[in-house]
């Protein structure tokens, strides 16, 4: 993403400048966290990266080509899952492949695999409203992973979960990412989560959103969950927090 600017019309007939000169670089296989105060434009960055919105200035390049519209190559896991309520878990997961007119037996095989990967085996015939928040999130992850995207975009995926489910999901994500080595950009407001999961952290300012800092996360993979208790972790956390609150 290079020199991206974005404004919205604000209720008082003015223009609200949301993003000012945002530049980010995400390499293949990198997991990048975007952290910042509430309402600083983080979701807007994700929407632009996904292709749902266009910047007023500057642009986004993905694999050498400009991003103009959404694509399953940039799979998005939304903050509130966004599953189709009239489809079962399996039908939701199979949705993308069905659109691509993949052969039914292949769809069957890949759906089973994806559902197992996120730990929801046995829930194939359930409907979204019969699932907990964490389970819905896992389904929305499965329906994206099945498309074998080049990149994952996740918008505060664990924000709506309770603390225990969140830790469990973070562990699952660590495991999945260690296995699949995806390229990920995820938004979070949780500093610990960013340090735990990411290779690189971009810290954003308040509105109008700017990138204050780019931080390389020093911890080697695989990362055990108890790294949270370590001294280095606490130091890194203090550093990020001080950037956020200055």
């Amino acid at each position, binding site marked *: 993403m290079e020199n991206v600017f974005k404004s919205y019309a604000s209720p008082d007939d003015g223009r609200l400048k949301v993003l000012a000169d945002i530049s980010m670089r995400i390499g293949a296989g990198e997991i990048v966290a975007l952290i910042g105060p509430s309402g600083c434009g983080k979701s807007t960055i994700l929407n632009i990266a*996904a292709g749902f919105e266009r910047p007023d200035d500057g642009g986004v390049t993905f694999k050498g080509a400009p991003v103009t519209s*959404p694509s*399953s190559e940039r799979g998005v896991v939304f903050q509130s899952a*966004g599953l189709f309520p*009239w489809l079962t878990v399996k039908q939701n997961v199979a949705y993308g492949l069905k659109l*691509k007119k993949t052969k039914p037996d292949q769809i069957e095989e890949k759906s089973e695999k994806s559902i197992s990967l996120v730990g929801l085996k046995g829930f194939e015939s359930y*409907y979204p409203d*019969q699932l907990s928040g964490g389970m819905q999130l896992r389904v*929305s992850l499965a329906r994206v992973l099945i*498309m074998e995207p080049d990149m994952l975009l996740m918008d505060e995926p664990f924000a709506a979960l309770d603390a225990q489910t969140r830790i469990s999901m973070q562990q699952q994500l660590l495991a999945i990412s260690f296995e699949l080595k995806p390229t990920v950009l995820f938004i979070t407001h949780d500093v610990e989560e960013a340090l735990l999961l990411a290779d690189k952290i971009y810290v954003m300012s308040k509105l109008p959103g700017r990138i204050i800092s780019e931080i390389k996360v020093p911890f080697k993979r695989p990362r055990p969950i108890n790294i949270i208790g370590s001294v280095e972790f606490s130091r890194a956390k203090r550093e990020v927090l001080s950037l956020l609150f200055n």
Partner: protein
Amino acid sequence: MKRLRGKIDPVGFGLPALLLAVWYLTAKGGGIPPYLLPAPDKIVRVMVDFADGVSKLTPYSGRMLENLLASLLRVAIGFAIASTLGLLLGFLTGRFSIVKRILDPAVHALRTVPGIGWLPIAIVWFGVGERTTVFLIALAAFFPIYINTAHGAAEVPELLLRAGRMLGAGPISLFSTVILPAAFPSVVVGLRLGLGVSWAYLVLGELTGVSSGLGAVMMDSRMMGQVEMIIVSMICIAVLGILSDRLLLKVCRIILPEKGS
């Protein structure tokens, strides 16, 4: 108290049974003359005769099927016209703001004239009878179908549309796999309302003077003093109304199976 899911709730029969008993006793009791309130058992006999023509109790003996089919056909045609236009324009209005800006004011202006108010001009245009009836049915049924479809189509959550697009849906796929299912509950409401209204305007239209049909029988039997037949026609229309509603629901469930639980 446990409600039996899917089975018919016995409690629901209580009030109608009570009313039926009161009716029977009042009619047999002699307080009210039979030309005002025929006894329920007489009604049943006349209705059976209306169907099978055996006892020849009234001039309408055995003529149920022909009248029933005549009315049914008018409702079917009128409802079909209303549905086609209502669904098509409803979806266009719901999804494209330019269409909404063009169509909505005009539709709502037309709606202010109550269906009955269209009767005189309809007779002028189409003459008394068949075509006027179908026109009135189509006109009345159109509005709930259009409004509910537009509402359902417009209220599809942005999140679901984004999810669909992200997973690779083009405009047509997006419509058939996201917009249509999401809007469907509202569409069904509109269709059911439209069907209910169709039966109401069927009677109005038939009152103008068609030669056959349940509404025609109803008006004719009043003039001939056949009070039982008035009630029998009402019951027939009510039953057809319920059956057609059930049929509509069944068809809708086939198109988009309702999720379990």
